[in-house]
């Protein structure tokens, strides 16, 4: 193919993805991740506190999310929920799947960060007559947040990338737009290269930010 022609194709694919795909992908990413953080925070906290029964149930939930392909979770929700009179459209199903899946991973990050705070910090807070809630609020949680931040940023990249999978249930986001477009322009290399570059443009800065945070944290601890 002529370079100018390729450039032209690339540009029209880019415009199409930008117009029809990016808004949906961004909403999936943002709404899904906000919900995932809520889920992850609650689940992580409950498991950190080892609340009886609830803790065990939530461990089952986390293991299911970690132990199943994301696509399988999407299919399951998409085809099974209607049988129980829960009717969600493709977008809602996608948000649900994304936030349940990312939420489980986030809960592990939250739990791990809380557990990483040394025992001495709990004891010191106790010795200062702080109530359990206040110990968590003013002593443990603020330190845990610093530890949790880098992996949470890293997880957000995985989350953004997972949004592409919901294109398989016919939701028109970035990947689906490219996939459909490829069938009409018959230029798979150009089309998917443009798509990849667009994901890269969003994910790469976040990855760099995450590893920057991580290095800062490691330097502080050393």
């Amino acid at each position, binding site marked *: 193919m002529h370079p100018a022609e390729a450039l032209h194709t690339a540009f029209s694919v880019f415009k199409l993805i930008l117009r029809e795909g990016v808004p949906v992908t961004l909403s999936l990413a943002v709404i899904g991740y906000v919900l995932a953080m809520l889920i992850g925070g609650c689940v992580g906290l409950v498991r950190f506190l080892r609340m009886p029964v609830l803790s065990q149930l939530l461990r089952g939930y986390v*293991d*299911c999310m*970690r*132990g*199943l*392909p*994301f*696509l*399988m979770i999407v*299919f*399951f929700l998409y*085809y*099974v929920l209607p*049988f*129980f*009179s829960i009717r969600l459209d493709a977008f809602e199903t996608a948000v649900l799947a994304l936030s349940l899946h990312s939420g489980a991973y986030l809960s592990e990050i939250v739990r791990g960060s809380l557990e990483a705070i040394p025992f001495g910090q709990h004891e010191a807070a106790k010795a200062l007559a702080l109530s359990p809630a206040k110990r968590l609020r003013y002593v443990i949680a603020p330190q845990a947040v610093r530890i949790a931040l880098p992996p949470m940023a890293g997880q957000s*990249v995985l989350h953004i*990338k*997972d*949004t*592409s*999978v919901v*294109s*398989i249930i016919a939701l028109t986001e970035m*990947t689906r737009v*490219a*996939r459909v477009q*490829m069938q009409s322009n018959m230029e*798979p*290399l150009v089309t*998917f*290269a443009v*798509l*990849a570059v667009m*994901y*890269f443009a969003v*994910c*790469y800065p976040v*990855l760099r930010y995450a590893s920057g945070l991580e290095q800062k944290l490691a330097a502080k601890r050393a």
Partner: protein
Amino acid sequence: MFFDYDINTTVMVKYLPELCWGLRNTALVSAVGMAFALVVAVFTALARLSRSRLLSKAAAAYVESIRATPLLVQVYFLFFGLPELGVLLPAFTVGVIALALNSGAYGAEIIRAGIEHIHKTQYEAADSLALSYAQKMRYVILPQAFRNIFPPLVGQASYLVKDSALVSVMGVVELTKAANTVQAETFRPLEAFLPAMAMYLVLILSLIYGASFLERRLRRW
């Protein structure tokens, strides 16, 4: 409500062989993918750690491009793009390539971190004891690196099995596609998905828990 759905065990049993076929393909594509991913990971890590700036930069660029783009896009790129370049491969092979390139990049980071994590004083102590380069690597550095690297690599393998579901978009009938096909034929999603999910859980969770077992077990020093 939940009770409205009667699980039809006859249907479940009847379609079990198809799910088992899917499981076989998932296991196969994952196992072959892991083997190649390991090779990719080792060579990429060596390139990254090498003194040649060019090699190191090239390896870094590869790792970052993989990590910053979705696997599904990589799969599409290879599956639809390779034929345009005149490379015609069966979908299964393309799946193995995609998984190996993807997991290989993550594996390379694990290997690199595991080696870089070893403090420079360990090299110096080995030097001061007159160990040759080969002996230093063989008896001091690599045993410690192995301990840092092996458990997270097993963890990465669990991601690879999870990710293998995406090769279904190329028509490979692995476990997810098999379950979805049964679901479409019978309109009984639970009978199709529950056994498939159980199979995945056994496969992937044993890798996840295996990794954390190894992590604890190898921490004997």
